């Protein structure tokens, strides 16, 4: 799906899973990305949200929850 691809493209080498938590516009993204290494949680979430910001802005997505992990953990 598009959201998964947008996040994966923005974070090369990441593993991304997106689940619908209700109604198709409340999503949860579970992301394991090498880019998270050494970053605070808030920065990890910023990276993910930035990749889909335009969909948040235009209302396609109302809520995106993020679970950020380091690869292999």
């Amino acid at each position, binding site marked *: 799906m598009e959201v998964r691809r947008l996040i994966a493209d923005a974070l090369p080498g990441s593993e991304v899973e997106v689940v619908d938590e209700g109604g198709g516009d409340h999503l949860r993204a579970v992301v394991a990305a090498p880019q998270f290494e050494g970053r605070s949680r808030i920065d990890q979430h910023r990276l993910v949200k930035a990749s889909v910001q335009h969909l948040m802005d235009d209302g396609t997505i109302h*809520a995106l929850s993020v679970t950020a992990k380091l690869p292999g953990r």
Partner: protein
Amino acid sequence: MSDPELKSKVEEIIRDNEVLLFMKGIPEAPRCGFSMRVVGMLEQLGAEYGAVDVLPALEPLREATGEISDWRTFPQLYVKGELVGGCDIVEEMFESGELASMLGVEQPEAATAPEPERLVPGGSQQSPPMPLG
């Protein structure tokens, strides 16, 4: 561009409150499931915090926090002037005990992130989760 006056007011509030929550509604009556969960965690920790209801000026506050913290959804928890995160991050940190140590309070035994129904006995006031954005 955010309203410069509002932006400096927001910066001032963040600076002046060691623990500050921007939320939808007020702690006694949150109007969004995510805000309700963060309030529930802060209450469980017995933390002292200031709260700002964003609903009366939602879009201007989105603009302002977007410029200040690069974060446009609510709730937002700030500790010592820094954005900690929204509901997801606060929940992870609550469960791991990081939030308690950041706030300098004791981690309650068996801390679990409160579900909305646990915060509203009887569920009569319970509303479906409301959008963050």
